[in-house]
């Protein structure tokens, strides 16, 4: 294992292609997509606590979805899979977005408390809304783009808490089913954008390992079409 780690941080043209796999909500569908593309994922699905799963032609490296752009930009991973929300939040990371994988579909929304007029009231009377979010850059860009002034408050944990106890007037967050919002007495006020999982590549790997990267993209596309 130590040899794997020693080589990290730099792209290398030999050896298997390194694919960054997102842990968490996207993991299941990512592994299904990889299976459909003919890549063995049984090791990752097993009980192992390892982070790196070496294979013949592809080594799977598991990590937080929000770390995928970091590893891929640096070339420590040649290619990766992560959500569009992550890519938008880290828009300054240079990675090539090659394919919309279609799964992991969810919406970035502005939400407020059910029946509560705080959002509108703050905007009208104070000229400014307070918005809690884990996606400060997406939120800022959205309100800037719609010509409204907000104070964006970045939180790390359950963002639903913020409007309930008065930290913020509303939240910008990702919703898949909407159940979490409902359970916390929150409702969608505006849709900001729709996000799905994307296949991304390091800029240099895309050039120097063109055949492998294109091959993998093609197999993923075929797998999805099935």
């Amino acid at each position, binding site marked *: 294992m130590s*040899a794997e780690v020693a080589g990290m941080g730099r792209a290398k043209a030999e050896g298997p292609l390194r694919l960054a796999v997102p842990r968490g909500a996207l993991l299941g569908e990512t592994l299904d997509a990889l299976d459909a593309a003919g890549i063995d994922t049984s090791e990752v699905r097993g009980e192992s606590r390892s982070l790196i799963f070496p294979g013949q032609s592809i080594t799977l490296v598991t990590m937080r979805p929000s770390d995928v752009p970091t590893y891929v930009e640096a*070339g420590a991973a040649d290619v990766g899979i992560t959500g569009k929300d992550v890519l938008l939040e880290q828009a300054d990371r240079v990675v090539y*977005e090659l394919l919309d994988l279609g799964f992991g579909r969810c919406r970035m929304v502005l939400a407020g408390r059910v029946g509560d007029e705080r959002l509108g009231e703050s905007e009208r009377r104070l000229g400014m809304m307070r918005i809690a979010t884990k996606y400060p850059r997406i939120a800022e860009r959205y309100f800037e783009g719609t010509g409204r002034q907000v104070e964006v408050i970045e939180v790390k944990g359950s963002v639903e808490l913020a409007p309930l106890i008065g930290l913020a007037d509303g939240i910008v967050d990702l919703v898949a089913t909407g159940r979490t919002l409902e359970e916390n007495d929150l409702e969608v006020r505006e849709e900001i954008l729709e996000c799905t999982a994307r296949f991304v590549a390091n*800029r*240099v790997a895309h*050039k120097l390992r*063109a*055949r492998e990267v294109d091959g993998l993209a093609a197999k993923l596309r075929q797998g999805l079409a099935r």
Partner: protein
Amino acid sequence: MIHPIPPGTRDVLPDEMRELRRLHLALIGVFEERGYGEVATPAIEYDEVLARGDGRTADTAYRFFDGSGDLLALRSDMTVPIARLIATRYAKAEMPVRLCYLANAYRAVRPQRGQMREFAQAGVELIGAPAPEGTAEIVEVLEAALDAAGLERAVIGLGDADLYRQLLAEFGVEGGARDSILGRLAAHDLVGLETELSELQGVSDDQVATCVALSQLRGGKEVLEEARALGGAAVERATARLGETLEALEARGVSNRVQIDLGLLRDLGYYSGAILEVYDPALGHVLGGGGRYDGLLKRFGIDQPAAGFALYMERVHVAQMEEESADGGGT
């Protein structure tokens, strides 16, 4: 006591400096050997003069007034200052003129990204030698420079700066929409590219497919044929031009490292014709780049074709170290 320096700048201590100096000497040696004389220009210029070279002044990050109220700026590369130098000092010289440099340039950085505000570039400028021979000559010099740096596995990507501007004109895409699409192409955001092109009035599905496919074509000579099969005048012109450059490179015996790349798009405003980028498998970042800028000198009052390249010295040094450790133990 710790006294800070601005983020994106750094001190160089003797161990590193010794290695950097060796690299500097090796590269300048290669350039001089091929008739490129070394020049230096001031790091500070009049903002107005730099802006003449590159209208999009986004790269010029540091501007200030001097005591007499003149607006000065730190250069963001060496190509524009050398264009200024050629127009001022070499206007009547016999062409071509061959110059090289090793100099610091300055750009804005985004916080916490490890980007350098001040960085060293080594490069050459060949003025008065048109394509394809002029292009082939700088690729030859670049090859020799990469050899001298010990980067045997480095690859030179060769593309065409005018391809997409002309292709989009052919599709009837102009103005803001065109710039936005060019931005998607430069970022290689294929998903966004496809969505945005499809949404434009009057662009057919075939045209969208052509544009996406074209941006993914990279490899050997066969790529030119694959591109031609996609059709259109812009593609025809770009592939013909790339074909000529490749022939000139083959005649010089320096085409081995070259990868044709129809997806290449450099974002510096002054490029036209051939564009270059340098990669090494040891590093996830681009080592350098360059190409032709046949229109740049004209902005300074002399109409001469020009081409050149620049290597980022710090990155070349990192790649060099990685290559050495790969040679030693290997993974």
